[in-house]
């Protein structure tokens, strides 16, 4: 029961009281709460807050396709970011009591779909593009000032994607995917010949670079996109390869604040099944297992973080979203499926909407 209680705590005093009766029932029937961007059958976009039994607690309509969601217990708010190169982010009250606020990226910037709160819930950090300069920036928003964007600092790379807060609460780790895009050219990738992906550790208070790690120069087309942090504070990352399909470099690795960066050796059959594409990365609740997904290859892989080898491989058509559920992970798909893997007791469920690439465990 701790999960539901944690969520109730996250949502703040009075959350349950503010729910409509059916929402309250939905919450009471479920142990876990998840959030994901979705596409409806009719083609509309939104975000849902739902229980593991499939009860939808809250839905939020979005003006266009959303991507990742971040939630802060302290701020009592969640934020859905537009899929790149979108220019909106929607701040919502999980209870649906307060009206959502739509943030718009400033002139010359767009979102990349990911963000994170400071531990005290005061600041919101989002990966953004300074697209004229082809440089990544972190937009800093003050949650106590109506989510006003008060400053920005560099990501020290191009095409930043996911960012996470390190366990020290002070350092942001940013996956600089290395790919340049510009809204004038849609999602066209403009610099495949000169990509320079990296993992950057940045002090969130000063914006200064703490450390930056790159893979071997021969792997410059390996775009580092998504991450999760394990029990030993290692940052596991998943890549997408932009070179020829006839090459199949390793796609999963880890980086540390001590300066180590390494790709692990996945067996070739697993690697080939990933189809040069990792869509999301998650860590189990205890940080001992890492899961990666490939919607291109319909594959989910759970990796033992200590042994650095896969412990489970599962097929899920168009599967991408991953979130810890205690013992294992839940995984969601573009076909509207939700399943449990690697020790999760979650039963397979089918929804009448498509899950987007990321699933967040809220409580």
């Amino acid at each position, binding site marked *: 029961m701790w999960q539901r209680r944690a969520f109730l705590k996250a949502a703040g005093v009075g959350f349950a009281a503010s729910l409509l009766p059916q929402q309250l029932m939905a919450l009471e029937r479920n142990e876990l709460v998840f959030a994901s961007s979705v596409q409806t059958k009719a083609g509309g976009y939104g975000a849902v807050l739902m229980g593991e039994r499939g009860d939808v607690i809250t839905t939020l309509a979005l003006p266009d396709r959303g991507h990742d969601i971040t939630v802060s217990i302290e701020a009592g708010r969640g934020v859905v970011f537009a899929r790149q190169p979108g220019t909106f982010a929607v701040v919502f009250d999980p209870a649906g009591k307060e009206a959502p606020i739509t943030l718009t990226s400033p002139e010359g910037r767009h979102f990349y779909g990911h963000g994170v709160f400071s531990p005290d819930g005061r600041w919101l950090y989002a990966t953004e593009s300074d697209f004229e300069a082809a440089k990544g920036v972190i937009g800093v928003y003050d949650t106590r000032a109506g989510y006003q964007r008060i400053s920005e600092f560099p990501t020290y790379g191009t095409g930043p994607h996911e960012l996470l807060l390190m366990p020290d609460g002070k350092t942001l780790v940013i996956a600089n995917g290395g790919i340049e895009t510009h809204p004038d050219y*849609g999602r066209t990738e403009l610099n495949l010949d000169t990509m320079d992906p990296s993992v950057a550790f940045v002090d969130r208070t000063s914006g200064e670079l703490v450390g930056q790690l790159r893979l071997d120069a021969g792997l410059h087309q390996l775009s580092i996109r998504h991450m999760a942090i394990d029990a030993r504070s290692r940052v596991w990352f998943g890549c997408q390869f932009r*070179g020829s*399909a*006839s090459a199949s470099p390793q796609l999963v690795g880890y980086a540390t604040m001590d300066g180590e960066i390494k790709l692990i050796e996945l067996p070739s059959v697993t690697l*080939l099944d990933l*189809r040069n594409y990792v869509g999301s990365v998650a860590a189990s609740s205890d940080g001992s297992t890492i899961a990666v997904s490939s919607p291109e290859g319909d594959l989910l892989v759970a990796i033992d973080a200590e042994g650095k080898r896969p412990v489970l491989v599962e097929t899920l058509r*168009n599967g991408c979203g991953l979130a810890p559920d205690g013992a294992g992970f839940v995984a969601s798909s573009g076909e509207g499926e939700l399943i449990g893997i690697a020790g999760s007791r979650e039963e397979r469920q089918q929804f009448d909407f*498509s899950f987007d*690439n990321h699933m967040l465990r809220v409580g």
Partner: protein
Amino acid sequence: MMRIVLALLFALIAGPAMAQLSTSPGEVMRGAVNNFIRPAMTDFGGKADALSTAVAQLCTTPSQANLSAVDTAFANTALAFGRIEAIRVGPIMEENRAERLLFWPDRKGIALKQVQAILSSQDESATSPETLRSKSVAVQGLTALEFVLYGTGFEALNTADGAFRCRYGLAIAQSVANVADELVAAWNAEDGIALHLMKPDATFTDFRTPVEAQEELVGILSHGIEAVRDTRLNPFLAKGAAAAKPKLALFWRSGLTVPMARANIDGLQALYDLSGIDGGVPADRTALPVAISAEFAQADAALDLVTDPVETAVADPAQAQALADVVTATQQLGVLIGEQLSSALGLSVGFSSLDGD
């Protein structure tokens, strides 16, 4: 509209008969490779060789007639490339061949600056394909050659004053021909990319099953149509209060902007038609191929209405509208092919994938 109504009517009549012509993924890939990709690559190779010969002739004997012959050969080569540009699989994805053939989009005008620097400094190392190879990819391909042939100072090409410019142009033409020949050789090899697409095998790293190969084909069609919209049309068309910017268009100097977009779309339509992929659509979805063909026809009809070079076309309301209609058709095709066809064929090229997020 009438066209679509007729097409749908036809689908209703022809539906049951078409349902019996179910094409397997293997047949589709053989159709794609043998009926379209290989011949179109060979055509591009031939056109690129002819361009190289024509530029050599111009350099040896500068004249207006020889310059005109080069113009024709350049257009032929660019448009032949336009037809296969979307085939971003296999050899084109290796050794930066795609960028070496056509450096585009070039948002910061890198090619222009670098080509102008070569021309003004008369950099001799740019005049042989071997040494040109070690330079920026932006100065090696058709984008660079277009500036040499049509950019400021091109008039010198038909006199002896243009000797350096011509020799640099020749090195580019030879470089393009070399890359084209590599593509032709790779696609015609018995054990290369063509085999992998037509006869996928569990031992291959790229394509292990017919379904994976067919996913690649649908990805090529879907990404190809998106690229026409995002890199060839939208960047220069007027948007809201923002005026059209025709000088951001590919090949505006040579007047090939619209012909190139047409070559792109025609190539995609030929790939779609000649692969026979529509034959794999299940019996209850036969309206889909009809809708796809109708949308390709809409794009073609709209392109027919754009008769002026891009700079004047965008200033003429009728032609500007026609260009906007092409954009609409590409949006429709993106949904019809990338989402509906993919789903009708049971492929994993769906909502979460095909986008790089």
